[in-house]
Structure formats: structure tokens, C-alpha cells
């Protein structure tokens, strides 16, 4: 019988040698390490204090080319791609005709008529079918997922490491990209990432993956370069206020009812449409999004929650236990209630919960109705203390929770804390 083995990324052998725990998870059918060492916190702090490297190769990668590409993407994507210059990147999303989000992703403008896109879920057929339905003949969409591996190099020393591999990093501003040669290998570099920190992502041709990995490790050796797993990455992304598909929202494509679907406004991406008044283009979902913007018909907003440390401590101490903090990251739903004379009046829910080691307090990503979404608003978050539900005071906060100047600083510099 033929064994259906999980796929491995182009860097797998290099990373497997560094995985002290021997633990692997599946991510889009690829082996991915939740962590490489026994301390997730150490990996996490590589991102915040030195430099971490994350293998983000399991993302789906598409190349979109041809004379109709800009017009096509202007129609498919919620943000106007014409605002993204050659050599820049854009974080965007694409919606269904009702304005519900199908997916989010980062798109890179490699040339006037050439874009590269990463996505968490397969989207080749969706893009091709959409192009064909809308009669765009001058656009070609290719799946280049297997052709490249992607490494995210993130942390205050990311520039010090990457700049040893390519001079292209010197000039890059936040969300810019360039094609470059790394050790004679044609690669792509972007100043992007999923950590909210200074960082770069390198697209390396699969055949060269091992060789470039070794070069990277050598360049990073003196900066304590540390491979980081999914767990540490996810902790960092909560602090950065970056949403995760199937945790903080799900694709409209596979939802059963609208209650499971969310608009970009509901996901807290109102900022994507700041210039919508001047933006005259048609795009899929525009009408619904515009209505929500003008009539405030969005059902909820995704916000940050700052959980009161003293209250969090109190409910645990009253139960006779230490408040759990260490490496505490949860993706399960927690209910949120209105504060008032009556306890347990449902208001919304939290999707991601983290005790932030950096911020020294619990934080969460939450969905709340408009009237409770203003920063500073107090709500009750339900947590289980020895299996019993307890309410803890939380305050609505604007995301990101953590946004260091070095993320966008030019030139990037080395070590600003």
C-alpha cells in the first residue's frame, strides 16, 4: 500500500537537524515545527531581542502576470493595487460579492505587470475562474508554490544578518521588495513579516534552499540566530495585532451561514478603505463594504483587549492557584460580557488569547459590537479557573499591542530595544 506521507518544505532537512523536540505539526500538508527547542519563550525572544528565522514555505504562492493584471487585481482585491508601486508590497484581502472576506495576503509588485502573492489557502482556481468569468484574457495566474521556499528573518538583528547576504536590504523600507542575488542565486527579498517587528522575507529557489540556508546560519551565528516554530510566531503575531485565518476569522468560501462570515470592516480593516471616496474602481464586495462604512451596519468590530492584570491575578489567587502566565497562548473562543448591574450579559467573544511575556499582561483579540468597540471601554472576559467560569475585567485597546519603531525605521539599524 502506498503511504501518503506529509510533504516537506525545501528547508526541511536543515530544520529537522535543529529540531531538538522532534515534534512536528501539519500546516497545509507540510511538516512544520511548533517549536525547535523546549523553550517557546526563548524562540519568542529571538524575535524581540535578537533574530529568529521562520520557514513560511507552506504558504501558497502565486505569480500573476500579463497586460490585464493591474485591472484584474483592482477588481479582485479590496485595496487598490494601482497604489502599490513596482518594488512595493501590499497587505490586502479579497472578498465575495456580499463583501465577506475570502482571504487576506501579502502581494508583491515585482514588475509593472508582474505580481507575486502569498495566501494561506489554495486560491489558484478561484483567481483563474474569476478572471475567466470577468473575461480578462490578458492575465496569467501560475502556482509557483513548489518553486520557492520562503524564510522569514525577524527581529532587531534581522538587518544585520540579511545585509550580509544582500545589499538590497540597505534601501528597503517597510513593505518594499526587491529582486536580488544571494550567493549567486536569484531571489526576492521583502521587508515584511508576521511578527510586527523588524524583519525580512526571502524567496529562495527550491533547488538552492539548502545552500542559502547554510549561508544564512553563518551570517546569523554571531547574532544568536534561532529557528522559530509556529508557537512563537503566533505569540508575536497577537502582539502585532495580525489576524490568523481559521482562528480569528474563517473564509467566507467555506462558511455555512453569514454569522460565520466577516467583512473587512468587521475584521478591523477599516483603514484599508480610508481613501475609498476618491477610489472610483469597482471591486468585488464594494457595495456591501461601502454600506457598512457609511451606515455603520457592520455587526461587530475586531479589537484588542487588554486584560486587567490585578483582576486576572485575583480570580486565580481566590481559587488558591498561581495565575497561569507562562507560554499561555490559546485559540479557543472565550465569551465577553457587558459590565453592568447584571453579570453574564453576552456582548461578544475573544478568538486569540495570550499572556504576553513582553508586555507582562494577558491580551486578546476580540469581536465586539460597535458601541463597545471604543478604546477604553470596559468589558468582562470569561475565563475558566479550575474549570469554573469567572469574569475578568478587560479594556478595549487599539491594536497592535506592540509596535516598535525599528519595524519601520530607515535605515533599519541594529539593536534599538
Amino acid at each position, binding site marked *: 500500500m502506498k503511504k501518503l506521507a506529509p510533504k516537506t518544505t525545501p528547508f526541511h532537512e536543515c530544520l529537522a537537524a535543529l529540531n531538538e523536540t522532534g515534534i512536528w505539526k501539519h500546516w497545509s500538508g507540510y511538516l512544520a515545527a511548533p517549536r525547535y527547542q523546549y*523553550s517557546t519563550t526563548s524562540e519568542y525572544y529571538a524575535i524581540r531581542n535578537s533574530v529568529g528565522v521562520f520557514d513560511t514555505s507552506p504558504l501558497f504562492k502565486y505569480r500573476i502576470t500579463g497586460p490585464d493584471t493591474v485591472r484584474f487585481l483592482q477588481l479582485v482585491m479590496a485595496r487598490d493595487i494601482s497604489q502599490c508601486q513596482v518594488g512595493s508590497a501590499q497587505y490586502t484581502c479579497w472578498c465575495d460579492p456580499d463583501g465577506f472576506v475570502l482571504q487576506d495576503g501579502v502581494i508583491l509588485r515585482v514588475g509593472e505587470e508582474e505580481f507575486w502573492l502569498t495566501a494561506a489557502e489554495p486560491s489558484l482556481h478561484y483567481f483563474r475562474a474569476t478572471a475567466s468569468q470577468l473575461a480578462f484574457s490578458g492575465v496569467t495566474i501560475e502556482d509557483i508554490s513548489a518553486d520557492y521556499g520562503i524564510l522569514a528573518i525577524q527581529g532587531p538583528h534581522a538587518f544585520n544578518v540579511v545585509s550580509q547576504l544582500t545589499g538590497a536590504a540597505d534601501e528597503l523600507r517597510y513593505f518594499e521588495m526587491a529582486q536580488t542575488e544571494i550567493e549567486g542565486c536569484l531571489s526576492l527579498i521583502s521587508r515584511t513579516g508576521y511578527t510586527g517587528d523588524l524583519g525580512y522575507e526571502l524567496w529562495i529557489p527550491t533547488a538552492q534552499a539548502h545552500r542559502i540556508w547554510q549561508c544564512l546560519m553563518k551570517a546569523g551565528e554571531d547574532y544568536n540566530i534561532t529557528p522559530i516554530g509556529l508557537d512563537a510566531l503566533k505569540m508575536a503575531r497577537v502582539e502585532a495585532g495580525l489576524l490568523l485565518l481559521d482562528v480569528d476569522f474563517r473564509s467566507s468560501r467555506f462558511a455555512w451561514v453569514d454569522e460565520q462570515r466577516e467583512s473587512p470592516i468587521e475584521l478591523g480593516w477599516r483603514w484599508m478603505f480610508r481613501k475609498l471616496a476618491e477610489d472610483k474602481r469597482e471591486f468585488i464586495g464594494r457595495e456591501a463594504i461601502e454600506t457598512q462604512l457609511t451606515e455603520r451596519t457592520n455587526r461587530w468590530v475586531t479589537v484588542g483587549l487588554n486584560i486587567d492584570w490585578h483582576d486576572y491575578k485575583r480570580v486565580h489567587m481566590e481559587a488558591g492557584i498561581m495565575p497561569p502566565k*507562562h507560554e499561555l497562548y490559546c485559540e479557543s473562543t472565550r465569551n465577553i460580557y457587558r459590565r453592568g448591574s447584571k453579570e453574564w450579559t453576552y456582548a461578544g467573544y475573544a478568538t486569540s488569547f495570550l499572556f504576553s511575556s513582553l508586555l507582562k499582561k494577558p491580551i486578546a483579540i476580540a469581536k465586539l459590537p460597535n458601541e463597545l468597540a471604543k478604546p477604553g471601554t470596559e468589558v468582562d472576559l470569561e475565563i475558566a479557573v479550575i474549570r469554573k467560569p469567572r469574569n475578568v475585567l478587560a479594556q478595549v485597546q487599539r491594536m497592535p499591542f506592540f509596535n516598535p519603531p525599528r519595524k519601520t525605521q530607515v535605515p533599519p539599524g541594529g539593536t534599538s530595544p
Partner: protein
Amino acid sequence: MKKDAAYDAVVIGGGHNGLVNAAYLAKSGLKTLILEQRPLIGGAAITEELVPGYKFTTFSYALSLLRPEIVQDLDLVSHGLLVLPMTNSFQPGLNGEYLLLGPDSDVNFHEISRHSVEDAESYRDLSHLIDRVCHALKPLVDEIPPNSMSQDPADLAEMAALNQYLEDLPADIRAMLEKFTTCSAAEILDDYLECDLLKAQIASSGIIGTKAGPRSKESGLIWLFHKLGEYDGVQGEWGFHKGGNGGFTQVLARAFESFGGTIRTNAGVDEVIYKNGKVTGVRLGDSTRIEAPIVVSALDPRRTFMQLVDPADLPSDLVQAIRDFKFQGTASKVNFALSDLPKFPGLNGHRNAFTGFTNIGPSFDYLEEAFADCLAGRYSRRPFLDCCVQSTVDPDMCPPGKHIMSCFVMYTPYHLAESDWDSERENLGDTVEATLEEFFPGFRKLVEHREVVTPLDIERVVGLSEGNIFAGEMFSPQMFLNRPAPGWNQYRTPIAGYYQCGSGTHPGGGVMGGPGRLAAKQILNDHSTATSPAR
């Protein structure tokens, strides 16, 4: 005589407790001034770039005991608090054996099993019991202790409540607490474990900074004290502040200044000025007078009661208690700039062995031998070392590829029987290097720079009497109800408006901040009572 603008409160000493105390006072709205004798703030929690590019944690070198409330109350994260995890604890033995404990309890189980299968299991029981004891003690650590000498009904009620609290603790916790306060670390450990390497590693927490060996009865309490800390809720775990503990005190200074506080360096205080039993201000070394109705000493009890004020103005029982208060510093520091990581021959294939503490002290006998030298009035010929290669945790401590190693050295008695520290300083450095060479062959060749800090240097530079790192020994008779003296454990002094907030007060030493915080609480209680319109 020069006279400066008046303040609501003046804090003498800009160490971590002075900073914490002053920050709480400033936050509550008091116009607060910190006076620091040195050109830099931080006391014994400083980081110095002695060689360009190399940062040395001259004195204190790690964080754990810092009260989490302080981080929250003073909003330290927004001022740059960044505590990196120290995940491993490495205990090299002689003959190539070793014990390497890390963040995963199952991996630790198997690591200890290499030495003793039963210990591997008992270690878990013991760790859990200690966690529960520490948890039970937290309310006592984080509150102003009661006054055992007072006959005031409110104080008597507080003492009764304390006794009731202790009586109500589960029997096993009470029994263990009793052991910690009366037994040596060795006695307690012998009940649970058999592996020498493991026992010595644990017992090292019981001798740090103290004139006690693992078999001295004082070591139980010192061990317990060091377990009261935490890293993100994991009890007994340690962290390293970005840039060392100097980085941490800079954070405190920024927090203090953000609340409107003023720091004055190169401003040593000669005396506290008081009239009719009430404090009125301080006089600096240059004769400048600064007036304030509240003066707080963050210095040790000897300086607070015997130098800053005239002991003749104090009750004789207090003066006697302070005279009897034991300092007798026994710790030194030797810090190294290294060209590469030290290599331990037996350590095959283990990465990250140094990202935490490395303990040189493989057995009770080794530690007791080191202690015997101390009792004989000389420094240990083969010292106990608590080392940390800090650059593996924070690469910004030195240039890329290089390393910084901090070594805490025991035992080095303040009073040497047959020599003096100015003559012995470099000899001590050599002794430490020789010991490291024994465990890490080739160590000497890695040394690019060395800094030796003796108990005398600690006293001279920081001002801690006899170089005691805890501002006085943390023996039972000098703790809790008795720190620094019975009846004077609530941060007040016999002089109204004059307070104490240093490590010589409850809960004690270490970069804890507890004394600073609790003293502020007391001061603000008194202040609000004094200024409330009802009176």
C-alpha cells in the same frame, strides 16, 4: 549654607529599592527627589561598559524576585522593561559528569534519571511542595509585616491574624515551612534526594550571598527566599534584563522621571536633619541643605540608623539591634570578556547549555570545603561559582561573536584573617580562573578582559556595609518581624517622617523591589492620615 528648593520627599540612595520607592511616591503626586552619591543611578544594579563594546554587570546579574506588582503599578513595560528568559541550569561535575536542567519537566526527568531514577521522581514532588510553600508565603512577602513589639490593639490583631494564617495552612506546607526556617538545605535535601550533583545544584540557592554552607542551618531559609521569585509565573525561574540589571534600573529611573521625579547624582548625603523628633530634610556632602517633610533612606540599616542620624537620639534597644545586625559579606564578582564560549568536555551535542546559570559546586563536600576556608578567614581556594554567559541570552552585551561571562564568587569573607582585599584582589581573580580552567579546560585562553569585585569594593563603591549584597544577612533572626529590628520592621524609624526602604527591611535583599514598594505604601498611608481633613 546653600539651601535648595523644598521637596515633599527625598529618597537617599538610587539603588533599585530607592528608585521603586521614589517612583511610587512620585506617582502618588509627591514632589520627590532621589539623591545618589555616585555619578550613575542603580546602586548595586548597574551595567558598565568597562571595555568598549563589552557590558559588565558589575554587581547583581539576574532578575527573578522582582515583585510583579511593581511592573504593573509603575508601568515598567512602557519604560523599556525587557526580561529575557534564562532557560537552562547547568551543573558540571568533575570527571566529565554533569546535570543540565531545562524548561521541560519530562526532559529533566530523564536527565536526572541518568544519575538516579528515584531522584527524578522525588525532584518533582519536592519542586511542587516548594511551589506551594512559596505560594502560601506570597501574601506575607507582599504586605507590610505586623509589629511584634507593639501592644496597640490594631497591631495585636494583626499579629493574631498572622498566626491564624500560618495555622490555617495545610499541614504539609506548615511542616515544610518549619523545616526551611530551622534546617539546613542539606538536611532537607537529604530527605528527598540522593544524587550529589543534583543536591548541590539545588543547595547553591541556600548559600548565595550568605555566610553559610549547605550544612549550616541558615541555608534552608536562604534557599526558600530564592525560590520566591518567578519568570512569567513559573516560580523559582530567573531572567536576564536586556542590558543587565543596569538596564533594569534605567527603566526604573525613566518611570520615576515620567511621574515627575528628580534624580540628582554625585549627591551623597552626610546627614539627615531632624528637630524635636521630626525630620526636616538632609544635608549633602557639599553642605547643601534640602528640606523635605519625608526623608527615606534606601541605605542599609547600619547607615540608616548609625551614620545618617545620631544613634544617641534613638532608643537604645534599636541601636543595640542594629549594632548586632550581621553584615559579614562573603561574596565577590569576577566578570570576564571572552573570545568564545567555554567548552565542557563531557557535554556532547547539547546546545544552549549556557543560556542560564552554570553552577560550579558539584557536591556538598565541595561547597563545605569552600565554606571552611571562609570560616578560617580566607577566601575559598576552590570557590563556588554561579556563572552566567550573558551574551548567549542577550547578544547585545558584547560585540558579535564574543562573550560576556559573569561569575558570582563564594566564599570571600570581608574580613580576611591574614591579608587585605587590596592585596588579594587579583589573586582572587586568578583563583577563579584556575577553578574555571579545571572545569572548562582551555578557559584561560578565552579571557580577553577580567574585572574583580571584592566585598571591599562592593562596600566602597555601592556603600553596602561589609559588602553584604543583601544589605545584611538574611538569617531568621534578621528577617520578617525582625528586619532590621523587632518593632522597627514597618519602614518607620523613631524619627517622624524618616523612613527606611532598603534591602535591610522586609522582605529582604535581591533585586526584589519589595522593600521600596512596601515602604512607599507605609509612607503614603501615614501621609494621607496626616493630611486628611478629618484631622
